[in-house]
């Protein structure tokens, strides 16, 4: 394995994941006020109403697909009697559908972002960088799937023999990148673009995907908070969280404005 390969398939993924994790922790601690979707629906609603759900649902399917294909070892699916052929058909059809939703949604989002005037003017430089680095892996991934799985040799390319073990070796801190140089170019480019996206994730509006409001369905509708323990209305019940004003960090003084 050449030095370049080690750089690309060992050093770079670790650098990117370090930025992802450390960046998220740093931003969570220092910039709660900036942690938002920065919704642009106020400026434009008609396209967003279609494009955003399409993109998000598609992308969440893509995430689920990547999890299944990359994290779960082939031996496990084999063990439960899930044959390679069946897996391939399922993965390719569901993956193509997800890609279709994502790409159509993405085109809509990009259109309103850069063509609709009021949305364009509300676009920051970070948004532009984010959209470039978001679009790249999506297009490369679609190309990789089309060129190898749909229109490639029969049976497609079995990434579960090469890419998946490599990724798991990275995630378990036992990096083994020997197989990577043999992977088709489209996949290799897609992977690099993907890790670039991870690297900038914490510094863009994409952080909103980390704070999915999963607790909402179990919460009481009305939230009460007490200003100070000394004057609060006792007793404390479910859904009542006191605000701690003594350990106020930056920005906490502006609560409620």
């Amino acid at each position, binding site marked *: 394995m050449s030095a370049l390969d080690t750089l690309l398939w060992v050093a770079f993924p670790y650098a990117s994941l370090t930025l992802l994790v450390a960046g998220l922790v740093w931003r969570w601690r220092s910039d*709660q006020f900036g942690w938002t979707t920065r*919704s642009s629906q106020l400026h434009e609603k008609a396209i967003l109403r279609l494009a955003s759900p399409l993109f998000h649902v598609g992308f969440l399917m893509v995430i689920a697909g990547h999890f299944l294909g990359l994290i779960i070892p082939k031996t496990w699916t084999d063990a439960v009697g899930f044959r390679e052929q069946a897996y391939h058909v399922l993965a390719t059809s569901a993956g193509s559908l997800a890609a279709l939703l994502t790409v159509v949604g993405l085109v809509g989002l990009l259109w309103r972002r850069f063509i609709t005037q*009021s949305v364009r003017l509300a676009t920051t430089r970070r948004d532009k960088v984010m959209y470039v680095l978001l679009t790249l892996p999506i297009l490369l991934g679609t190309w990789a799937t089309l060129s190898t799985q749909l229109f490639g040799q029969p049976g497609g390319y079995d990434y579960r023999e090469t890419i998946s073990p490599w990724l798991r070796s990275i995630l378990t801190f036992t990096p083994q990148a020997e197989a990577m140089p043999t992977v088709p170019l489209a996949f290799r480019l897609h992977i690099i673009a993907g890790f670039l996206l991870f690297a900038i994730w914490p510094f863009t509006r994409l952080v909103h995907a980390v704070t999915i409001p999963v607790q909402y369905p179990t*919460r009481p509708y009305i*939230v009460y908070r007490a*200003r*100070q323990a000394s004057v609060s209305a006792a007793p404390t019940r479910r859904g009542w969280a006191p605000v701690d004003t003594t350990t106020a960090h930056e920005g906490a003084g502006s609560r409620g404005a």
Partner: protein
Amino acid sequence: MKVMAQIAMVMNLDKCIGCHTCSVTCKQAWTNRTGAEYMWFNNVETRPGVGYPHTWEDQDTWHGGWARTKKGRLKPRSGGRLARLAKIFANPDLPELVDYYEPWSYEYDKLLSAPKDSAAFPVARPVSQITGKPMDKITWGPNWDDDLGGSTETMSQDPVLAQMNLDVRTEIEQTFMFYLPRICEHCLNPTCVAACPSGAMYKRAEDGIVLVDQDRCRGWRMCVSSCPYKKVYFNHTTGKAEKCTLCYPRLEAGQPTICSETCVGRLRYLGVLLYDADRVGEAAAVEDPQDLYPAQRSVLLDPYDPQVVAAARRDGVPESWIQAAQDSPIWALIDTYEVALPLHPEYRTLPMVWYIPPLSPVVDQVTASGNDGEDHKILLTALSTMRIPLEYLAGLFTAGDTRPVERSLRRLAAMRSYMRDVNLGGAGDEDIAGAVGMSGAQVEDMYRLLAIAKYDDRYVIPTTHPETPRGIAALGQDVSDLIGAGDGSPEACSVSTFHGQSTLRMTSRGRAAAAASAASQPSTPGRVNLLDWGGDEHASGLFPPAPSEGSDR
């Protein structure tokens, strides 16, 4: 019973002159920023009219407030928890900017920079604050139908009118008009809070103020559409929701809200109410919408009832707040005199800004027809025959039940003629008071509160520190400190000294931006908080720097 305290407001609509001072001072204090240009935490609408944002009362379109399910439970009209999460990627009920209006400013500097002898008359063109482009024709604004201007085109879209029949509508257009100042209702059962997926919105346990935690808001913009009064706004620059704060930094220091303080008509009242938090859900879920007004009143607790006082102490309501609840002008107007009514109780949020309906449309009509507008017999007869204003007001305040509106207006009418007798040197006519179920002494008390109440009687606000003076006393010290009363004067209680800050807090980003702009534009004077400036020491930034040596001035 769980006793909680709420700071509530009452506005006496008869006295509103529609001057918009409240809106402007609120804007200067709270929404004079990028991304907030279109927000009016306080707005004043002409009714009948479409309001701001456009037709906000049309809940078939906006799906704000609560709906009662078949089982008698409450659910936000826009859907329950899972339905909301399903709609999170694009909120189908969210108003667009055009539903508010596209905010604009004018190129004022063109007036100053125009060449001296230019043949063309200098003009300040309107410029959009969203796109930065000139707006050739402004076609909508936050009070476009002010004073019924242009109402022939838009009035028929008023959602309250839409509930009435056509004859009524055409007649109303000729007969009557009044102003409706609106702020956030700081509801007992707020849908905005219920709809917030991240739990960033909350109701403060001590005073019931509904706030958005700016650090925890994630921009899911569900509160905006769920508030039936459309009083949560989305800051499109910061990506966070913002709303009326009831000026809590001032209330905590015992001072009235800015919109109340600056109200030209002196028509706003602020005070404490005690209520039973355990019964809020039950009251908001009564079946018939017309029962919501009495149901909401039944949640409010009598602050003179010894049992209530004992329960309030048990539940941790401070003594000064119980006292304030007993002195509360709000309780008097809602319960003792029964003249104040809630705005759109049918939204089931139990709003906490109430209104005294305006009698003036009736009086104007009576005097215009050549009759005595202060004679109680004529007024009370007019009230029972002039159904139209009554029905419209009932559409606003009581879900269509005209009886409470009529009672309120009859009491106001009786007060008019009773007090005329008194002012003309006679004894008040007990029959007039009796005709509306009051005693003469009660009518006079009500008159004192409605017509001539002093600052401290209109605003009964306990501070969060009982030892700090409140009301006009605190204001007096503020003023004396401002003009420099000299050594030995008591320490001022201004809003920022009360909160233990000599200067306004800034985020690190704000400080960096301020430093950068100061460096790049050295001739721009900085900001000085005049209210806290003692008048004796040097305040840097108050004046532009002196011209440097060698310049020819």
